[in-house]
C-alpha cells in the first residue's frame, strides 16, 4: 500500500507538470482577454492533428513537425480572435462563453471532416526509467520539464519585453492600458496567438502519451479551468502551483478509490476554494 501511494505521489507530481502546461495558455487568455476559452481542449486536439499530419503524411521529422504544429496553432489562435472573439468583445460574458462552446461543435466536426473519425497516433517508444520498483514515466517527465522551461520563457516574455508588459497592463486595467498607448486589439491577437501556440505545445507533449481523435479535447478543458481559477486567474505561478496540488490530489485519490472520485475531490476542492477565497491561491483581490 505504501509503495502504491509513493508511486501515486510521484505520478501526481509528473501529472502536475502536464496539467500546468495545459493551464498556461488558458490562463493567459483568461487573464488578458477575460474570456473563458471553452474550446481550449479542442485546440490541443487540432494541434495534435497538425503534428500528426506534418509527421506522418508529409514526412517532416518529428521535432520540426512539432514546431510547425505550434506555429500553425498560433495562426489558429489569431483566426479565433479575428472571427469569434473580436465580434464579441463587448457582448455579455455568457454570450462569449457560449460562442466558444459552439466553437467546440464546429472544431470537433471539422476535424472529423478533415481527418476522419479514426484514432491517430504517432508510435513512439519512450525509454523506461526505473529505480528499483519505482517506474517514472518518461513521457510525463519530459512534459514536466517542458512545463518548467515554458514557465521560465513565459516569465521572461512577460517581464522583459514591451509586448509582455503590454499584456500585463491590459490584463490589469484595460482602459488605462489604452490610455498608455497600448492597442488592446494587438495585445489580444498576441495573447490568442500565444495561447494557441501553447495549445500546440501541449499537443506536442501529448504525442507520446495519447492517440488523437475528434473528441479528444473535451476531457481536458474543465480540469485546466479548475487549475487556472484555483491558482488565481491570470496568475501563471498560481496556476503552476495549483496544477501540482491538483495533480497530486487526483493521483493519490485515484489509487485509493477511482478516477471519477479523484476528479470529484479535485472539483470539490475547487468549489471550496471559490467559496472561501474566490481570487484563488495566489490571486489578488481586485
Amino acid at each position, binding site marked *: 500500500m505504501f509503495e502504491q501511494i509513493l508511486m501515486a505521489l510521484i505520478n501526481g507530481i509528473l501529472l502536475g507538470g502536464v496539467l500546468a502546461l495545459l493551464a498556461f495558455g488558458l490562463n493567459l487568455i483568461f487573464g488578458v482577454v477575460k474570456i473563458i476559452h471553452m474550446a481550449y481542449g479542442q485546440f490541443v486536439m487540432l494541434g495534435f492533428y497538425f503534428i500528426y499530419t506534418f509527421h506522418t503524411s508529409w514526412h517532416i521529422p518529428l521535432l520540426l513537425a512539432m514546431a510547425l504544429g505550434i506555429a500553425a496553432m498560433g495562426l489558429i489562435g489569431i483566426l479565433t480572435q479575428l472571427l469569434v472573439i473580436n465580434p464579441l468583445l463587448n457582448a455579455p460574458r455568457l454570450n462569449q462563453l457560449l460562442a466558444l462552446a459552439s466553437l467546440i461543435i464546429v472544431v470537433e466536426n471539422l476535424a472529423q471532416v478533415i481527418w476522419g473519425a479514426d484514432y491517430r497516433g504517432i508510435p513512439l517508444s519512450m525509454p523506461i526509467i526505473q529505480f528499483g520498483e519505482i517506474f517514472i514515466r518518461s513521457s510525463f517527465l519530459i512534459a514536466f520539464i517542458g512545463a518548467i522551461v515554458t514557465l521560465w520563457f513565459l516569465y521572461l516574455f512577460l517581464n522583459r519585453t514591451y509586448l509582455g*508588459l*503590454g499584456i*500585463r497592463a491590459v490584463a490589469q*486595467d484595460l482602459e*488605462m492600458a489604452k490610455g498608455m*498607448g*497600448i492597442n488592446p486589439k494587438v495585445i489580444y491577437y498576441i495573447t490568442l496567438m500565444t495561447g494557441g501556440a501553447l495549445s500546440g505545445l501541449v499537443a506536442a507533449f501529448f504525442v507520446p502519451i495519447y492517440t488523437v481523435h475528434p473528441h479528444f479535447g473535451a476531457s481536458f478543458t474543465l480540469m485546466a479551468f479548475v487549475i487556472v481559477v484555483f491558482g488565481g486567474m491570470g496568475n501563471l505561478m498560481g496556476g503552476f502551483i495549483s496544477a501540482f496540488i491538483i495533480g497530486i490530489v487526483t493521483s493519490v485519490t485515484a489509487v485509493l478509490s477511482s478516477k471519477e472520485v479523484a476528479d470529484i475531490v479535485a472539483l470539490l476542492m475547487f468549489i471550496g476554494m471559490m467559496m472561501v477565497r474566490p481570487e484563488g491561491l495566489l490571486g489578488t483581490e481586485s
Partner: protein
Amino acid sequence: MLNVHDINVFYDEFQALESVTVKIEKGQTVIVVGPNGAGKSTLLRTIAGLQKPRRGSIEFEGHRIDRMEAHQIVEGGISLVPEGGRVFPHLTVMDNLKVGSYNKGARPIAKQRLPQIFQLFPVLADRRNQRAGSLSGGERQMLAIARSLMAQPRLIMLDEPSLGLAPLVVNMVFEFIKSMKQEGYTVLLVEQNANKALKVADYAYLIESGKMVFEGKSEDFDKNPYIKTAYLGL
C-alpha cells in the same frame, strides 16, 4: 494646438456633454472647473479617445483625432493622468513607468528619460521595485504623472490631481504643474479645487451639467461674482 469643437457625448442614453468647445494654445495651461458630475472627466476621456463624441470634432495640431483609437492619440502626443492616480497596482513602479513609454515614439528614449524622471520624483526612485498598489495616495499621483511624462507628450491632461490628497501633497502637486509649464508642456487640467488651479492657469473654463457656462482668463474668473461665491468660496 487642441481644438475641441462643439462636441456631444453620450453614455448610452445619458448625455454627458452638450455642445462643448475648448481651445488650447501651445504652451498654455488651461483649466476646466466645475462641480462633481459636470462632465469634466468625460471631456478628458473624450479627448483621450476613451469615449467617442456623437457630434462635433476634435483637432490636435491640425489633425482630426476624434475618430482615432486611444492608443493612436497617445502616439500623437496627448497623455492623460487619470483621476485618483489610477496606476497599475500589480505592476512595479518601474513597470508602470515603462508602460508610460509604451508608444513607439517614446520607447527609444525611455532609457534616457528615466533618470530625469527619478530626479524629478526621488521617492519613485526609492520605490522602483515596489508594487504600485503599495504606494500612498500622493505617491500614486506622482507615479501617474511621471508615467504620463514618460510618453513624451506635447499635451498633458490631468484629471483632478489633487483629489483626496493631504493639503501638503496638494501643494506639491500644484508646484509641479507650475514647473511643467516652465518646461514647455501644454497642460489641460480639470479641477474641483478652483482656487489653487486658477493660480497656475492661463485660461479657464467653467462647466456645469455638461455645458460650458463661462470661459476667460484666470483674472476674469476671479472677478465674476457668481463664480466667486459658488466656486472660490469668497
